[in-house]
């Protein structure tokens, strides 16, 4: 054991004294980082802090300057009735809000699960060698390249209860006994939104997974071929473990995206409580209902929920952003 030195043990701890070149590199790195940090502070940091601040005030859209500090009032406040009973009010006890949270979380998990599986399938196909692969690779990205507003409108026509092509097809093929108002019915609204989102974002998922697949050396599949590993086993024992780091990062990207879904639902199923998400509800309160402070509280909660879910995911999934364990 002692005769051979491990590759890792030969990597000596970095010397305390930094060389001039190293210092120069660190200076350059900082210099390059400054523009991005400034941009982030202006477009992300400042609005975020303002939102959080407003969530603790009674601000209204018509008069932001006159906002008064109300502490946690927007989140939870209570009044004691004469009878002694306590009445709670605020975001944390708002059933509409928790309905939106549930909608969002349900939407995010179902859509990302489907996208991960379908994206993997598409990526595996695109990773295989066949004629016209370049064209197919480009073509498959089209749903993702179309602006959401456009594709949402397109789908809303396809899903239309009177003239939509889906109802027409379903009727002609005998799959439907009567036309369904996909986006308007509470039972099917979420399904409709999910279908469109999965159609739209699977290519993005596929692209990220494909990048991971291409990192896997081809020769180990030949070794597996000689070892007599069945293709299905090859996938579960070799491909999946090796593409896992890329897959986990792809899922986290999509999860973050799905948890703040807004545009698709806003266009496809406006005002349906079956699909109303946190973002849609926050916008409604911020701008439509002139409850700016309450909307800010929702935005803050949304931020908190996403942050917590992401941290839990990274922790549970042992996601590593340094390119995995290869």
């Amino acid at each position, binding site marked *: 054991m002692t005769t*051979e030195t491990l590759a890792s043990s030969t990597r000596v701890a970095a010397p305390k004294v930094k060389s001039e070149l190293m210092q120069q590199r660190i200076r350059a790195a900082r210099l390059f980082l400054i523009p991005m940090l400034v941009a982030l502070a202006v477009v992300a940091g400042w609005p975020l802090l303002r939102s959080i601040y407003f969530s603790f005030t009674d601000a209204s859209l018509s008069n932001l300057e006159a906002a008064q500090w109300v502490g946690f009032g927007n989140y939870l406040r209570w009044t004691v009735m004469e009878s002694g009973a306590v009445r709670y009010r605020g975001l944390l006890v708002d059933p509409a809000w928790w309905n939106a949270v549930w909608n969002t979380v349900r939407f995010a998990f179902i859509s990302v699960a489907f996208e991960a599986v379908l994206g993997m399938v598409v990526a595996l196909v695109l990773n295989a060698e066949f004629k016209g692969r370049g064209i197919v690779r480009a073509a498959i990205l089209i749903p993702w390249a179309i602006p959401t507003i456009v594709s949402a409108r397109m789908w809303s026509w396809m899903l239309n209860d009177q003239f939509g092509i889906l109802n027409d097809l379903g009727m002609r093929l005998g799959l439907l006994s009567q036309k369904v108002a996909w986006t308007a019915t509470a039972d099917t609204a979420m399904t409709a939104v999910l279908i469109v989102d999965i159609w739209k974002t699977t290519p993005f998922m596929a692209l990220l997974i494909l990048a991971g697949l291409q990192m896997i050396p081809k020769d180990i599949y*030949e*070794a*597996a071929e*000689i070892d007599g590993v069945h293709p299905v086993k090859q996938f579960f024992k070799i491909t999946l*473990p090796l593409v896992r780091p890329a897959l986990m990062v792809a899922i986290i990207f999509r999860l973050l995206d799905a948890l703040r879904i807004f545009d698709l639902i806003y266009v496809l199923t406006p005002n349906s409580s079956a699909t109303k998400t946190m973002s849609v509800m926050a916008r409604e309160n911020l701008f439509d209902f002139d409850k700016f402070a309450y909307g800010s509280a929702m935005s803050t909660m949304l931020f908190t929920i996403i942050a917590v879910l992401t941290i839990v995911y990274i922790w549970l999934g042992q996601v590593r952003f340094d390119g995995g*364990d*290869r």
Partner: protein
Amino acid sequence: MASIELRNVRKSFGMVDVIKGVDLEVRKGEFMVFVGPSGCGKSTLLRLISGLEDITSGDMLFDGKLVNALAPSKRGIAMVFQSYALYPHMTVYENMAFGLTLEKGHAKEEIRQRVEKAADMLQIRQYLDRLPKQLSGGQRQRVAIGRAITRDPKVFLFDEPLSNLDAALRVATRIEIAKLHEEMNQVTMIYVTHDQVEAMTLADRICVLRDGLVEQVGTPMELYERPDSIFVAGFIGSPKMNFIAGDKAEKYGCATLGIRGEHMDIKNDGLWEGTVIHTENLGADSYVYLDMGQEEPVVVRLDGAVTYQSGTVLKVSPQDERIHRFDAAGKPIR
């Protein structure tokens, strides 16, 4: 243990013919080396034997049985790749055991014994719990060989296994492979390399390939002493054989005269005259490069450390019995 027979085997990739009709027999328990310059098709030929590529036409037989369409895993082969091709997410043990765990009918204990036996042969027992990335290049290649041994193959295929290693490791691993062949003398081994030294030191027989065709098959000494063509003569042996054309060759009745550097003597009454361009002193021997008005400088190999000043005029004579004569088509005149 298996004998392998190739009958008029061809392989094309689209319009490109890579293997252009190879007839070859590899005997049971033999160490056969495919050697040739890059692009000669030697690796492709190995991949055809492994079954990783399908042959375009012709027949391939293992022990007299046609295997043209047989899957690689059913041919009883094991392969060692140039890039090791270890599964990066599995430990050394898992890498070596993977093939067996998927095959039916191997008890856990049996697999463990086979892995440990192979690990002991290659002295990698202490690394069994490590991941490939924690090993050096030489250790990884030994794991790859170990994985092949664990499969207990009838045919062992090596695809340039040493070319990713540094010079010292290459020699050490070469000796290990030679030892392995002695220990596993029942196993047929086919080894691809572009390095003629590896070919000479390891092979029972060498198959020299050129441009998709077999140029010559024979023992290392046969190739060294009786090359069937100028190509083989130039490819086998280091330093490269000198080729002398023109008047000097005509005197010997041939178009090209081939003479190895070690078969020339410097004497005062030497037959040919040349000017020293450069001397390479390797300690045990020295190479003297002479300008004799030929296309390439003529190399004379001398024992011991000898240095001639550049520009010195020397007289050299070939050893007559060591002369190789070739006709204009590059074929030997015997």
